[in-house]
């Protein structure tokens, strides 16, 4: 199915969810404003599979390029107070770039593995309105991504390209606001954030504005009872990202930055201790680049455990 056809389908699913379904859960591709209890931990493990490729037939190129990324993202969440929550995230990643000559079908593969850039986030609830079977919360957050991943890896061909290095080589900061309306029947989350990328040597990577929305609907059980302790949720999410072009010595680089939108259907199994979840992010809009890689899909699966 053409990814563009997924837009009306997804909107339809969201409307069906709004008016008919029982919704509950938390977003898969971004955060929620729901609380973490004081003194309690949540461990979140997420496996991220990203595949990107170019389109040599459309661009008249002789080389097919494929990029694969497999990352294990570990996040430890701690409720410092009922309103103040701390997040620490460590990614372990494997990134591959495969080039195939379409005339000879010879291919070369380059790859790197190791720890990526760790990040720390703090989130503070500034507005809370609890009611019977529901809550509405607004929480700004601020964070930093540190250059802990190796960004100077080499192989026998020399320095690896930046898009398969483990780290970015810069300390970047971000700020945002997340809002959540949750009830026993449905949950909506929305987030806006801005990433301020530092420059590295003479390269200034473009800053990024992100907008994310998530709707979670409970389709099992259809009716709550006094003994309900497990939910199965359908999830539909929308991710918007707009990155400024990269610059070298102040000059904008073509084939960089741009606007990308994902639609992300997913599923969650929610119990008292554990949430299991999976989603697939499908691009519905992304920059058309000459000789450039375009995202084919992003698959996420993992769990959250409170202890």
């Amino acid at each position, binding site marked *: 199915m053409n990814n563009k056809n997924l837009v009306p389908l997804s909107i339809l699913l969201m409307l069906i969810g709004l008016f008919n379904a029982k919704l509950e859960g938390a977003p898969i591709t971004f955060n929620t404003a729901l*609380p973490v209890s004081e003194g309690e931990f949540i461990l979140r493990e997420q496996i991220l599979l990203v595949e990107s490729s170019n389109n040599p037939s459309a661009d008249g190129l002789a080389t097919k390029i494929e990029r694969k990324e497999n990352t294990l993202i570990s996040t430890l969440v701690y409720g410092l107070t009922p309103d103040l929550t701390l997040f620490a995230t460590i990614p372990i990643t494997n990134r591959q770039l495969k080039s195939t000559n379409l005339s000879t079908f010879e291919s070369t593969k380059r790859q790197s593995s190791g720890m990526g850039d760790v990040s720390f986030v703090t989130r503070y609830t500034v507005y809370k309105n609890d009611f019977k079977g529901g809550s509405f919360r607004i929480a700004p957050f601020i964070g930093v991504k540190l250059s802990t991943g190796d960004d100077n890896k080499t192989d026998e061909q020399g320095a690896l390209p930046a898009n398969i290095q483990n780290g970015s080589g810069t300390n970047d900061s971000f700020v945002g606001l997340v809002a959540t309306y949750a009830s026993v029947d449905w949950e909506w989350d929305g987030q806006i954030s801005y990433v301020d990328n530092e420059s590295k040597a003479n390269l200034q990577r473009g800053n990024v504005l992100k907008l994310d929305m998530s709707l979670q609907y409970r389709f099992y059980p259809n009716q709550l009872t006094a003994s309900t302790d497990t939910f199965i949720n359908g999830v539909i999410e929308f991710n918007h990202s707009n990155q400024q072009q990269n610059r070298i010595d102040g000059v904008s680089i073509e084939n960089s930055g741009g606007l990308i939108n994902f639609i992300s259907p997913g599923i969650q199994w929610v119990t008292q201790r554990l949430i299991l979840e999976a989603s697939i992010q499908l691009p519905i809009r992304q920059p058309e680049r000459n000789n450039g890689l375009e995202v084919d899909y992003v698959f996420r699966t993992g769990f959250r455990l409170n202890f």
Partner: protein
Amino acid sequence: MMKYLLAIITMVLVSNTNAKDVQYDMRVDGITCPFCVATSAKALKKIDGVKSVGSDLEKGIIKVCADEKVIFKDEELKKMFIDKGFTFKGMSKKEQCESV
């Protein structure tokens, strides 16, 4: 000796029979899913005399089955649920525990 042993066993059985469990229905605003209830349930289960904890999400109620000797105070519960991120609104007592 056998008489004393029987008397002790009888006293234990009688005292166990007399230990009555009651149910407190705690109205807590902000709980919306099983995952949200977990930390509150964990804290309540640590209280001596609490036998089991359940929830009725639709009614926003956390059900606590406890020995009748356990005394819950509104102010303490209010503080505990605030720490958990939720809002305690009040509670009622039932003379018998439901299956929770």
